[in-house]
């Protein structure tokens, strides 16, 4: 056992960069950049500073807090770095917010800093997912508003058409009008408002985050349950015994029950109906028609038009044929006459039930909007004197990034490129500056110690109380 007299604090002399904190009887010796035992007091460049449960307001260039630039307000074109309306910090201590954080403070007591800024994003855009299989326009087609190109149709995804809007080329790379129209469209969509866009060689689409898309004036109701082949697979058992053949019409893959593995498995008799398009695997056909506003995202309105031929050696009179789309919205029932011609007939109840079940299994079609932007640039200077350390801290999951409190996805690779669901953000989160660029809240949350370590503006950290007392604020 060491002699107590040898304990460090009794022997080590106070040197230039160590100060004695006299805030409490512990009388911690604190070296420059360190905090005392309480983590409330720190040695900043030889001075004792109180850190505490915090939220900070850093001033913009003019010495005033700058929230959003008002529309029409002059903008000097400079992307001033510490364009920060608020730096916030909170603590896991129960001092200021007992109930919600008591759980965290029970576990460990780390003072947390949240740097709240409103970032100006000149590199930003929206990814819009439109739950529809209807044809909106060819891939790469221009998406326009007021004649200006604000983005393009990008690759289709599961049950959805995708638009990519904005981006630096449309915002600042084209004409002034193009930039302004793009910025206006992004702002509205990000703030959950409605924008109707036109797609070259395609449709007019009304977009609103969280609402059903409206294509050429028609509201999209639901997503398809799956492609035609998937629909066959899901419902084959339920059709068995009620139908001799089922053709599920789909722009991507049209399914034919008796040829399909699912029909074979049920020992169904081949029906001899050959559909148009290119056969993929048995019972699965690509490109039975052109994309369009008809059945299952194709251009057809008359389902029999996709039947190429009916083989008289295999088909038989009285054969019962269901044709249905992948959303169950369109369906027709046919019975083959003595000349093997399909004749429309009234759909039997058991078959009708399955058609309705397809519809029931389709999820409501929504238009959803993800904001994507780069916070890896000069914005970081509002947080730290050494920007790359913030980037690394985010990369290492030490610093958590949120936008208006909403969780973000930080894209791997260089920079701090984030994606956030605008629906998860508070209303009216977005503003703009005439650069044109979008302005939105972004918060970096990290332990106080780490904030000091990445070169944070420790001198600007003030208490939450102080901010609430001296600043006008509103609760979300």
């Amino acid at each position, binding site marked *: *056992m060491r002699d107590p007299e040898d*304990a460090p604090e009794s022997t080590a002399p106070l040197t230039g960069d160590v100060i004695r904190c006299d805030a409490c009887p512990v009388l911690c010796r604190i070296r420059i950049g*360190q905090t005392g035992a*309480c983590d409330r007091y720190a040695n900043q460049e030889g001075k004792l500073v109180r850190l505490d449960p915090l939220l900070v307001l850093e001033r913009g260039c003019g010495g005033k807090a700058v929230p959003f630039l008002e529309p029409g307000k002059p903008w000097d074109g400079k992307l001033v770095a510490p364009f920060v309306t608020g730096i916030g910090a909170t603590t896991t201590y129960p001092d200021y917010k007992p109930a919600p*954080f008591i759980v965290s403070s*029970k576990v*460990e*007591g780390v003072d*947390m800093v949240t740097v709240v800024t409103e970032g100006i994003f000149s590199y930003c855009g929206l990814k819009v997912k439109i739950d529809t299989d209807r044809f909106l326009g060819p891939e790469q087609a221009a998406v326009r508003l007021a004649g200006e190109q604000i983005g393009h149709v990008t690759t289709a995804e599961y049950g959805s058409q995708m638009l990519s809007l904005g981006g630096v080329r449309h915002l600042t790379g084209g004409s002034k009008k193009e930039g302004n129209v793009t910025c206006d469209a992004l702002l509205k969509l990000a703030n959950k408002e409605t924008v109707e866009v036109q797609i070259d060689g395609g449709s007019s689409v009304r977009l609103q985050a969280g609402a059903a898309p409206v294509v050429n004036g028609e509201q999209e109701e639901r997503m398809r349950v799956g492609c035609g082949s998937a629909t066959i697979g899901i419902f084959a058992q339920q059709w068995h015994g009620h139908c001799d053949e089922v053709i599920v019409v789909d722009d991507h893959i049209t399914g034919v029950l008796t040829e399909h593995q699912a029909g074979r498995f049920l020992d169904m008799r081949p029906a001899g109906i050959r559909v148009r398009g290119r056969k993929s695997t048995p019972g699965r056909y690509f490109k039975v028609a052109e994309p369009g506003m008809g059945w299952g995202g194709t251009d057809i309105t008359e389902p029999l038009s996709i039947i190429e031929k009916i083989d008289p050696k295999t088909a038989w009179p009285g054969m019962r044929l269901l044709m249905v789309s992948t959303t169950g919205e369109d369906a027709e029932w046919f019975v083959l006459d003595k000349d093997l011609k399909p004749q429309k007939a009234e759909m039997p109840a058991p078959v009708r039930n399955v058609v309705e079940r397809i519809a029931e299994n389709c999820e409501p079609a929504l238009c959803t909007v993800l904001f994507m932007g780069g916070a890896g640039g000069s914005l970081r200077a509002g947080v730290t004197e050494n920007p790359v350390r913030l980037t690394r801290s985010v990369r290492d999951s030490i610093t958590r990034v949120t936008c208006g409190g909403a969780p973000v996805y930080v894209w791997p690779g260089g920079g701090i490129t984030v994606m956030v669901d605008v629906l998860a953000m508070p209303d009216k989160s977005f503003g703009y500056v005439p650069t044109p660029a979008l302005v939105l809240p972004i918060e970096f949350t*990290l332990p106080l110690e780490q904030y000091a370590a990445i070169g944070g503006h420790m001198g600007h950290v003030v208490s939450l109380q102080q901010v609430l007392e001296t600043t006008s604020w509103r609760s979300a």
Partner: protein
Amino acid sequence: MAQRLSDGRLHLQHGPIDLVILGSEAQYERASLRFGTVLEELVAELPLLRTPVGAAYPLARGKVARRMIAAVWPHRAVFVTPMAAVAGAVADEILEAMQPKGKAYVNNGGDIAVHLPAGESFDAGIVNDLLRPRVDATIRLQESCGVATSGWRGRSHSLGVADAVTVVAQDAAAADAAATLVANAVTAEHPAIRRLPARALKEDSDLGDLPVTVEVGPLPPHIVRAALDAGVKVADAMRARGLIRAAYLALQNRTTAVIPEVHFPALGRST
């Protein structure tokens, strides 16, 4: 400093000590009275309390200091100073001074002394990662005891890499000491782990120049498992010796417990 929180609980703070207390009005008075001198008593014996416990039982004057020493004494085979139990010992001391009859607790920044009459229970939530606070597990306590949590992100430096080690023991000082030592044992060697001498972070640290964890990057699963296993081994040994009742260990989305009274309602959620 004493103040009442909006929900009526008492908040006492002096220097590095932060207490949130639940009890009756009379008990709050007794707690405040006792709290008045606690920090001075501790400071008077700080050199002793910051010295590693060795072959001889340290003799302290203060009652809190004696609680600290009693709590760490069984663990003297490894490096430990009485400071490993300071938070829990203060909580125990205040709780005792309150002379509680009904449900009461003293929460000292996460180290909690709990008084529970028969039939009452107390649910404690565990947050593994303060950067993503959520209740990752809950512990239901049904008799008077102490609960403490330690981890490298905590205010006290850890030699280990655990996100959270929560221990239930007969009192908060015992839980505090055990949680610290189990958390120290959850350790590994990996390039993603960064350590610094304790004194580079806190000049006065009782850990001296021992390397403490300052950063833990993503670890491969086998490292996580091995580190947790090392901690479980230590916790199991403590339980076998009657030093703790239960322990919960969390490291990078992997958790483990040494007894079955711990529930894991929210595991598996990704962030």
